[in-house]
């Protein structure tokens, strides 16, 4: 059954209904509403957990609210990364929950300098976008030497030089155990349990209490058989990797496998597929012919495909900006909650190098509006002051009739932003779609209003024609 919205009433009936506020909400009904919107966790209701009379209800609630894709935590002593926890195949059906973390690999044949270099690049990767920082998430340590002692030392060294949680990668259980023994306080993800080592890896997963990835490239029957074996033996925190094949030999297989597994989890209630999916675009370095740029290109393309089609964690080798930048932005886009309008902070944006005679324009704070408008202004190489008015995240087109673009807000922003001190003129350019507010804005602000074009792509032309010394002079005099 595809995921269906649960009614808050159904949840409310099973809550204590004491309105004790321990969860931080005003009452149990408010908590129920937040629960069905996936905005809070059931465990915040402490009485439900602590008082035995609620045991049954707690179990029922868990069943109703648990995501079809299990959520698993990977931890270092400083950070937690959550993977999975997804409810739906398509983002419009609810929202996606945990943005696909990206792990950057290092291996045990690298020098300390090289390890530090890669860790630093991964840790310091940061791109500011819509007022948010886009970053990377994990370090994957691979055993290339096949020497347990070397691996143990490398894992220890990496762990003491990064705050990121780790993925420990080897198919040799002795190596995995050596790695686990190096970080007794962490909760790394083990990669991987296979058809050849499952007995020992299950044993280790239990002994160290760590999540494991089941890897069965090209064979879904074995993948789910291994998953069932792990579950039957008490290993519940598992992730699945059906194999990331890059290029002609299997990109299609990989797309199919990820799509089928997620379909089974979300729509067919098939428990053995209900786990986070791990993608390894890094295999491009093994299978793609050509120079490193070519390998990186296909690694990036494959990673993008997997961000869209259901990977809950990616392991990559490339640390080039051009490869990672589109991926973290794509990930941000795809994992944005479609139920909420994406807005940007209201306030003053300085574009280019404006001076005291540069234009002052206003727009709304719907993120898309803002990015298109500012993008058009930048593309036209116009130096200006752009005032982003709080329209409650609504596009200008709808904000005008919906009374979300208010002249008094414009007036307030002109003052608080300090733009009055930055320019000598008192002319405000407003969006063409807000033309009918021109008079009201003039009254509220005391500034002269110049109505801009209907579409922001025409701003450069508009400025070229209308922002001349004569016209500024004329408007300032009138």
């Amino acid at each position, binding site marked *: 059954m595809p995921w269906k919205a649960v009614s808050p009433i159904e949840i409310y009936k099973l809550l204590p209904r004491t309105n004790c506020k321990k969860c931080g909400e005003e009452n149990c009904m408010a908590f129920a509403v937040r629960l069905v919107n996936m905005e809070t966790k059931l465990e915040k209701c402490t009485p439900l957990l602590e008082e035995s009379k609620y045991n049954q209800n707690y179990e029922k609630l868990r069943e109703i609210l648990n995501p079809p894709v299990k959520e698993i935590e990977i931890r270092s002593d400083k950070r937690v990364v959550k993977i999975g926890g997804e409810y739906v195949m398509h983002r419009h059906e609810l929202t996606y929950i945990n943005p696909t973390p990206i792990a950057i690999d290092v291996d045990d044949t690298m020098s300390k300098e090289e390890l530090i270099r890669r860790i630093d690049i991964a840790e310091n990767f940061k791109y500011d976008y819509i007022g948010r920082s886009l970053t990377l998430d994990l370090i994957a340590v691979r055993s290339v030497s096949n020497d347990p002692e070397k691996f143990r030392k490398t894992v220890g060294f990496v762990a003491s030089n990064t705050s990121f949680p780790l993925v420990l990668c080897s198919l040799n259980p002795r190596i995995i155990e050596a790695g686990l023994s190096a970080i007794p306080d962490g909760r790394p993800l083990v990669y991987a349990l296979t058809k050849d080592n499952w007995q020992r890896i299950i044993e280790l997963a239990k002994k160290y209490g760590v999540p494991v990835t089941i890897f069965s490239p090209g064979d879904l029957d074995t993948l*789910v058989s291994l998953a069932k074996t792990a579950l039957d033996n008490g290993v519940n925190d598992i992730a699945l990797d059906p194999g990331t094949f890059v290029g002609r030999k299997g990109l299609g297989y990989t797309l199919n496998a990820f799509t089928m597994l997620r379909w089974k989890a979300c729509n067919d209630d098939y428990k053995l597929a209900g786990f986070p999916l791990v993608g390894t675009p890094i295999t491009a370095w093994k299978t793609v012919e050509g120079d490193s740029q070519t390998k990186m*290109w296909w690694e990036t393309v494959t990673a993008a495909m997997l961000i869209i089609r259901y990977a809950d964690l990616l392991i990559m080798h490339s640390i080039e*900006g051009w490869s990672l930048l589109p991926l973290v932005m*794509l990930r941000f*886009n*795809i994992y944005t909650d479609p139920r909420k309008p994406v807005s940007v902070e209201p306030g003053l944006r300085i574009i280019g190098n404006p001076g005291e005679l540069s234009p002052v324009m206003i727009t709304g704070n719907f993120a898309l509006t803002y990015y298109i408008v500012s993008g058009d202004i930048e593309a036209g190489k116009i130096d200006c002051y752009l005032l982003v008015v709080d329209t409650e995240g609504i596009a200008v087109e709808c904000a005008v009739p919906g009374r979300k673009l208010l002249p008094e807000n414009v007036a307030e922003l002109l003052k608080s932003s300090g733009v009055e001190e930055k320019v000598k003129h008192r002319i405000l350019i407003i969006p063409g779609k807000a033309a009918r507010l021109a008079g009201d804005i003039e009254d509220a602000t005391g500034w002269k209003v110049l109505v801009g074009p209907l579409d922001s792509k025409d701003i450069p032309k508009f400025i070229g024609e209308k922002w001349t010394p004569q016209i500024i002079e004329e408007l300032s005099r009138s």
Partner: protein
Amino acid sequence: MVKKEDKGINGLAEFLASKILEALERHGELILEDVEIEVDELELIVQPGMIRQVIKAPPVEKILKLAEVRFEEPVMEWVGKVVEVKIGATKSEGGTRDRTLVVGGESLPPFYLFKGSMPHPPVIAMDVFDMKIKLPKSVRQHFEDVLNDPAEWARRCVEKYGAEIINLHLVSTDPYVKDTPPSEAAKVVEEVLQAVKVPLTIGGSGDPVKDVKVFKKVIDVAEGERVVLNSLNLDMKLEDIAEYLRNKDAVVIAFTPMDLDKARELNRKLYDYLPKERIMMDTNIAGIGYGLEYGFTVMERARLAALKGDADLQHPIVAGVTNAWAAREAWMKMDPYWGPKEIRGPIWETITGLATLLAGADYLMMMHPFSIKTLKDIISFFLRGEPTRSEDIYDWVSMKIG
């Protein structure tokens, strides 16, 4: 040699039993080889408590067998089908194109090839403009010498970059650009039709009044070629242009700005004039970081609705992947860590295109030759990839890179 005569045979047996148990405990099994025991009766008495101790195995030994389960293939049923739209006309069909293309026809979500086939793989059209326009440098360098000559530009796309279809944009007809009259625009169309033999899509300037005039003129000179007009929208006088197109052999793209209700509304209006098989729809797309998620989701919803039976949305989907270049990250000079814009641009367009493929696009409009090549490769890998060999990647964790 065991020497325990004092306690007689019983003592020996007891001693042996304890040794055997000890060995069993330590090694799990004990094989007696070349041992002769000469007694009439040998009774090994093993204490019950000790037996329990022996057979108590460490947890791992309980896992003797790998569970054997089959992966159950997804079960799904889709009732709707996207119409097939034919583009271009060959000589036998009254045109002069050397091929025709069919898009659409899907009855499954995008690339659900585990449930069936895709009747017509998505096609990629290359953009050509009727005047020299601002292009990102990494695109411009491939067309520098033909930017003033749309016919040559189109020829470059087909002959050098293997374009299957040309997207001619008559941007100069914009009243605010050059205001090129419809008759001159029509001449450009004729030139391009002469220069290349692949099917042609003709785009206006986006001015709803001027586009109607331009489309009427160009459709007359392209009579019989089954060209695509890009695009009709709700701001246009549809009773004028759609009525004019009623008896022409042309396909239209119905454009709406990321709004499914408007997409349905426009399609329904067009049904009064045109058969469904002559309508594609463009629900609008933006590049990564510039609203991709809105376009992606509207496209995905449109296609899923169509497959669930929404008859107003059962049209091939057009994606203006070129919009990816509006992202600053695709063309701006940035700190060296982010790499040269010559690669950022193409990867931006490639991934934006890939996202539209996975959301349901059938017809991609694109610009950069390398992005186009990659997308064609991806489509072929999806459709006709070779089978996997697990050994190709099985030991990726231990590979040495570099």
